[in-house]
């Protein structure tokens, strides 16, 4: 593995790109997906229909198709997204669709009486969602959300197709240059697995903490 270690600086550049991509997509996907999930439940007929179609389509096509569409599609219309922007957008709309379903499911599992009680106090919609519904739905959504985060981390490797700057690309480039494919890909496996394992453990820990907090 010495050959891998000697190339660590270049690999680290790729890994930093992957971390950055992951962080941006998790935030965007979570925020957008939460709004979409709330819209799926409480929006008017038109909003619900549009979001339903969005969620079903995005979840029903291969992610790689979404990535190519976002990367190559807009060029014809004079919109030139950078590789980073393209992959962020593709992964974000993908994860937002999954997040919307997680949020919809989480909120649906809260008894209807909670919303009734919150309404009867005269709380506004925003106060009901933020103060009453979400704190109860969060521990329920935490498990699926952690799985989504792991999926997103693995999916960042698809950036190799369009941006040629992520960790997997740097691994591949070094492997080709040095001819030590086995060593470099084993290193990739170790890094990807470790990151996903940490995300998954952190999620499980947070879930337990939240369940204690809610005391039920």
């Amino acid at each position: 593995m010495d050959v891998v270690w000697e190339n660590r600086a270049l690999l680290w550049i790729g890994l930093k790109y992957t971390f950055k991509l992951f962080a941006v997509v998790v935030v965007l996907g979570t925020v957008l997906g939460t709004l979409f999930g709330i819209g799926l439940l409480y929006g008017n007929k038109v909003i619900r229909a549009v979001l339903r179609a969005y969620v079903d389509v995005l979840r029903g096509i291969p992610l790689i198709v979404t990535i190519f569409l976002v990367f190559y599609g807009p060029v014809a219309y004079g919109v030139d997204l950078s590789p980073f922007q393209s992959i962020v957008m593709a992964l974000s709309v993908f994860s937002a669709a999954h997040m919307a379903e997680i949020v919809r499911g989480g909120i649906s599992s809260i008894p209807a009486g909670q919303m009734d009680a919150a309404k009867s106090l005269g709380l506004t919609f925003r106060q009901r969602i933020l103060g009453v519904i979400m704190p109860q739905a969060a521990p329920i959504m935490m498990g699926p959300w952690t799985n989504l985060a792991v999926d997103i981390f693995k999916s960042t490797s698809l950036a190799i197709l369009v941006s040629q700057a992520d960790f997997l690309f740097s691994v591949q480039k070094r492997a080709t240059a040095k001819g030590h494919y086995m060593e470099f890909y084993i290193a990739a496996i170790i890094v990807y697995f470790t990151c996903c394992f940490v995300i998954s453990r952190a999620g499980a820990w947070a879930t337990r903490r939240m369940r204690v907090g809610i005391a039920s």
Partner: protein
Amino acid sequence: MADTKVAGTHHQLGSTMVQIQNVHKYYGSLHVLRGVDLDVRSGEVVCVIGPSGSGKTTLLRCINFLETYQEGRILVDGDLVGYRDRNGKLVPARESEIARVRAETAMVFQQFNLFPHMTALRNVTFGPTKVRGVSKAIAEKRGLELLDRVGLSDKAKSYPNQLSGGQQQRVAIARALAMEPKVMLFDEVTSALDPELVGEVLAVMRDLAERERVTMIVVTHEMQFAREVADRVVFMDDGVIVEEGPAANLISNPQSDRLRSFLSRFADSGHLTRSQGADQLSAKS
């Protein structure tokens, strides 16, 4: 005024607090409220009785606009509930307006519906701080007083799942009171309780009615409570008010066949057989 001591006339009643005018409610093609008219005056305690499916809970939920009604009007202290009057035509009110009117009424639910992620005290202070803009310190002082009034000052830091059903329901009453509502709505609040816990909740309600002169609309199966505490009892069946009047009169001397047959189903002691309440609970859980 020979009957001044009879339950039903022991309150000094004020102006009209709730006006329900020809209210109709449909679930799809199902016509669940078929033109209900009812006025409740300030300080009055009105018990609504009737068989399940008669529309009594739906009526209560309409007053709090947890259900929309399609025709007629409901006014709480002059404020139209859920709608705005545009030249005599009703148009849906804005969300903020609905919330403002809802805050004037407070509801206590069959299933308590306490917020499980908040302590008993936070359940009580949440509404005042968020809706009324009361400072946390003042809300907590007042919240502790209210918990004390329902006999739970030692449970302020407990979470709902650490409390018995009766205790949870008393916290729920304190939560409703904290909003200083103009009307309190009680929706079969003892139906989900174990029999031995019913008394403590009814005692709190009786205290509110008799000492605090809170305006109350109480949907209930507790006939004895209705007879002793209510100023007026309203009997609903099939989406309409069939009969109403002073509690003792109505219960001991029903005029309609429907009310007679309804009352005959009650056991000796004056409330529904407990198995019925237990069935409802298990069906929901």
